[in-house]
């Protein structure tokens, strides 16, 4: 077994759904505090790769390491569940469709897991909810239900919910894709704030401008492989691969 030198280390990740091979031998390292963007056309495997990191879509081949611990190690079912539940507490995830719990207020959404898993008292939980919701600018809506919030507000609560577990890694799967254009910015601002705090983040996005402005490194995926990766200044301005150029031409022109 080789020494773990990277914060997140993906080695030869392979994933098939039945006969469909969605990830083909992907290797990727992310350092602590780094922000990595993943772009690529629909169906290229971006979500699958992201979801493999916290084992929502377990790999069918290869290894994922997080902070010195192998995510997808072989264990008997019960032990594996325990290992994964423990590990997921350190990995926040934000979904395209928010997935807020509709039967809980913003406060309850944020405090449910910390209370349940870390045994926080109600007072500590309330303090935590206030702190996290304040951070995403949602403090004044703390006792609102998700149905009473706009899409952008929901997503900010969802980010607060993830942050309340004090994760060391945040995964974003198209956090703004389901939002009306005028609501995108408020969510992007929250993510930028996290970037300034040096949160380690892996961000799947369709927004090239946003990726260029916050990411240290951007990966372009196509058909289950990483075609090209590099700092945004290089990848967006001088891509070396034809497939990248073609994708960027469509997406950057399409956006402007």
């Amino acid at each position, binding site marked *: 077994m080789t020494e773990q030198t990277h914060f997140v280390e993906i080695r030869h990740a392979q994933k098939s759904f039945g006969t469909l091979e969605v990830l083909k031998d992907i290797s990727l390292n992310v350092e602590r505090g780094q922000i990595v963007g993943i772009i690529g056309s629909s169906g290229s495997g971006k979500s699958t790769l992201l979801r493999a990191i916290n084992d*929502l879509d377990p790999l069918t081949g290869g290894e994922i390491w997080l902070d010195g611990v192998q995510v997808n190690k072989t264990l008997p079912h019960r032990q594996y*569940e325990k290992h994964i*539940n*423990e590990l*997921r507490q350190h990995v926040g995830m934000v979904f395209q469709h928010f*997935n807020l719990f509709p039967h809980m207020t913003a406060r309850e959404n944020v405090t449910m*897991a910390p209370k*349940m898993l870390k045994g926080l008292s109600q007072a500590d939980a309330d303090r935590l909810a206030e702190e996290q919701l304040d951070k995403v600018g949602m403090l004044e809506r703390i006792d609102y239900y998700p*149905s009473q919030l706009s899409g952008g507000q929901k997503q900010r609560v969802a980010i607060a919910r*993830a942050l309340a577990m004090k994760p060391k890694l945040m995964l974003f799967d198209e956090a703004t894709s389901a939002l009306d254009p005028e609501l995108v910015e408020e969510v992007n601002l929250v993510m930028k704030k996290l970037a300034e705090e040096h949160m380690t983040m892996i961000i799947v996005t369709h927004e090239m401008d946003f990726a260029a402005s916050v990411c240290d490194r951007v990966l372009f995926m196509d058909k289950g492989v990483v075609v090209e990766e590099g700092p945004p200044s290089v990848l967006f301005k001088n891509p070396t691969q034809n497939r990248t150029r073609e994708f960027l031409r469509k997406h950057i022109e399409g956006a402007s």
Partner: protein
Amino acid sequence: MDIDLMLKVYPFFLEAAWVTILLSVLTAILGLICGTLGAAARLSRFAVLRFLGAAYVSVFRGTPALIQLFILYFGGPQIGIQLDAFEAGVIGLGINAGAYMTETIRGAIIAIDKGQREAARTLGLSGWQATYRVILPQAARLMVRPLGVNLNMLIKATALVAAIAVVELTYTAQRYIGSTYKPFEMFLLAGVLYMIIIYVVGRGVAWLDRKVQIT
């Protein structure tokens, strides 16, 4: 129409209506227990349990409830199951209702967006924690109305136990027809009492449904 006769026998029908209500309540409780277990089995990660759950549903929804009652009550003693008519009625109808409720409960659970479980699991909740804290509270709200439909059908199905001589509403009506030769009046009286029971239960279900909705 012999109104005087109806008024005269009415107290006996009322008494029988209480038997119907008791039968319905006990059947509903047993049905809910069977339905919960059935749904849990159908949603289990173990194939054997899934198979047993599916078999339970297809057997009990795939045969007439009356035949199930007859097998239990008349056939039971042959295989060592001795039940009085009331017990056989509750157990037979309860297991039958449970098959329908299995599908209702399962339907409500699988109707919850899978993103809900994913979000809960992502935070570190175990499968069971996600189920009881996130999935079930939402599914329970979805279940109220369809379980109300199951309850409505179950109350009407209690009429079947007249066939094994449980003295409930339908049986009572039949008995008074024997002595009065007035089937129209007797069945009408029974029908009205059923309707009242079902109306009250229906309002209760509607009230509960409103009460549990999220703002």
